[in-house]
């Protein structure tokens, strides 16, 4: 058996130290070691985007990130979007517009949508669709997701 490794990360504003299998993926560490199970595994090969998190301010598929690469990183997961019980504007819009159906793509979709709106505060529908094309949803046909993102932009953006 490979020797476990110890590394540090800041996840959702909290400093964490984890001792894990050296080949573990960031996704495994988030879900199994930190029990942040909001982040989902849909494919394990970077196609579906259900495991999307922010790492050092960039969106990544956490199933493709060997955890050794996350040494010292600042990570934000779906659990880090709300302030306590107060939903972020993107979460609130997904709730209002029915952007989440089964909810399994939702955590990754919310991270990508938040990142999109931070980079591009007033996206066109085409920019929203292109911006979220790395996150697969099988329930919604994306209509209500686009509606939700458009509404957040119209209402002052993701940072509201």
């Amino acid at each position, binding site marked *: 058996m490979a020797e476990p490794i110890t590394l540090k990360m800041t996840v959702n504003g909290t400093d964490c130290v984890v001792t894990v299998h050296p080949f573990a993926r960031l996704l495994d560490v988030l879900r199994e070691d930190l029990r942040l199970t909001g982040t989902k595994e849909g494919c394990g090969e970077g196609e579906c985007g259900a495991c999307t998190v922010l790492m050092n301010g960039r969106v990544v598929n956490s199933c493709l990130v060997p955890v050794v690469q996350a040494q010292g990183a600042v990570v934000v997961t779906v659990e880090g979007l709300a302030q306590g019980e107060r*939903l972020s504007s993107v*979460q609130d819009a997904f709730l209002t517009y*029915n952007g989440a159906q*089964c909810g399994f793509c939702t955590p990754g979709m*919310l991270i990508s949508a938040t990142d999109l709106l931070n980079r591009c505060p007033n996206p066109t529908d085409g920019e929203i669709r292109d911006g979220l094309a790395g996150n697969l949803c*099988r329930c*919604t*046909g*994306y209509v*209500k997701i686009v509606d939700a993102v458009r509404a957040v932009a119209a209402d002052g953006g993701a940072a509201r």
Partner: protein
Amino acid sequence: MIGASSIRKEGRAKVMGTACYTDDKFVPDALHGVTVRSQVPRGILKGIQFGAGIPWGEFTIVTAADIPGTNRVASVVHDQPFLVGIGEEITHPEQPVVLLAHPDRRLAEKARMAVTLEVEERPAILEIQASLDLEQVIYGTHNLLKEIRIQKGDPEAVWTRAAHVIEGEYRTGAQEQMYLETNAMVAVVEQEAAGLRVTVWGSLQCPYYVHGALKQLFGLPEGQVRVVAMEMGGAFGGKEDYPSVNAGHAALLAWKSGRPVKVVYDREEDLACTTKRHPSRTRLKTAFDAEGHLLAIEVDFVLDGGAYATMSPVVLSRGALHSASVYRCPHVKVHARAVATNTPPSGAFRGFGAPQSLFAMERHMDICARKLGLDAVDLRRKNFLRMGDTMATGQVIREDLDLGGLMDRALEEIDYHRKRTTFAAANDRESPIKRGVGLAVFMHGCGFTGGGESYLASVAGVEGLADGTVSVLAASTEMGQGKNTVFAQIVADALKLPFEMVETAEVDTDRVPNSGPTVASRSTMMVGRILEDAAIGFKQSLVQHGFLKEPYTADSFREAVAKAVATLGSVKCYGQYHRPPNITWNDATYQGDAYPTYSWACYAAEVAVDMDTYEVKVEDFVAVQEVGRVVNPTLAAGQIEGGVAQGVGWGLWEEVTIKNGRMINNQMTNYIIPTSADLPQIRVVFLENPHPAGPGGAKGLGELPMDGPAPALLNALENALGPLRLDEVPMTPDRLLGRCEEVVHG
């Protein structure tokens, strides 16, 4: 309350990432279970070898020889083993043979690869025609999982006297449900004084199907099995019957090891081994008079069911019953067969056989219109079913049906006639982009087919809680469609209470009655209606026992419930399905009311084809439907939009590639489902016509949107490109190129 776009009950947990799906459940000391599969399509299992380099002593190993009860998965037909035993027949390449469990997930995976099977291979049947030709007899005497005949009048008497007889053959491919959450199950087996107690928590649509399967597998009575539905990351039929299999596997490992066991498929395993939409072949023969009135329809409908029956008998039934689509016709003959092949069993997928037969008929109508020199819209309008007309089974249309008006609304929304003209002019120019519009008109039967609802005799209930709120008791599961919300709306509406005062109870077979499976567009209409009755009964018993006085307010109701619970300990009221007196069905003759009612729709699609790459872009899509009264417009629109997206995928891109009976593109990288960039803003229109059978007038709508997109898209493609052999879905760029070359090369 009914008619309001109430916010999804579990929505907050979903956007916060706290909703608990099966693999999110923290299970201390759990073992990870994996499955060794047959890998060959047909043969006799002769032996099992456990290779070197694995500490086998640390593993829990289960084979067929360990099974304590019956090694058959309880289903429509009890034909499928949980595990193939030594000396028994392997009938498809993903058949489970050995189960392994170990605390280390990586080691369990490594061990799975170290097991080899000795198999004496036999020749396999891998597609429909070979099965029909009985090249090998692999199931029963004629490879038939089910055969159905429906007859109205006598088409044979029509062919020679009709002005026109038009024949066609149509094919549809398998389709993967591609729920984002793969199949997952957690099992615990305890030794109690009363005997074994088996509990599973899983991603499953039908808790009582799994309950029945576990009882049979372990030979246990009712009370010794418990099934809990976790939050579910999509299903679409893919978790209708399959969970009986993986729940059994997890429970067997838990029973043998004495530890909790998690069985979570990775995507590749889920795609390779779980059920998919049945591939189909439909031959149609239709007769018309000189004006274009349908005189006769003959349908030869064949589904590839794979190695075991699973849901094939009922999928076939629904397909057969939808095969004449929405047309009035005096002479109809349907011959429907589900055949066995040595491929993993096909199963339920949204639409359940209807998309296959409706694709054929709705595509055929456009081809007939061209051959008759009529407009496809006019040909349909001449032949639509109306009130008083009789369908193939003798079912009389009793509602005020206006399919012409429905179609007109779709034509208007998509600007059909203007686009047909402008696209025709533009397509004549030397442009690499060709555009077209097309439509399909169709229906979807609400609830179980034939006598299914009577057989199920579903029960659902309403319970008062100590805090005075009300809980919905039903085994119907939430898979994203909005059951939690819609049930709460229906009960709140019946009790005249605020939506917030009603919640749905956790779907746990120890707590909720059997309201039937969560399938067949039946939850809102069928279970919702039972809940409406239960809610009224609940209120009446509060009044009769002196806890409640009418009229009441939300607060006085809350006080009454709290007091009743404090006094009596438990306050519940159940309702049960009762067959309406005017609904009759004869399963032997296939005559009668196939469904209590239907939802009706016209979908119109606009496509642009790039003649350099043969890529098809869907530029606009309009979905107009009549689904009775809409309980929650936002959730209902979400169902339609999602169903249309799946239908577009099936029509254009989603191809299951099979080699020697196995799916070889079993990854999201090479099985292509639509992304946000691939789809237009799907436009949804509801025309409301309340139906007395459903709660508040609601009908079923979940499956309907799967039926229309594929034929509408291929009809639009023909409009863009002219007459081609557009007889098959998915019409991928490769296939479309081939069809265009057929025209060039003759």
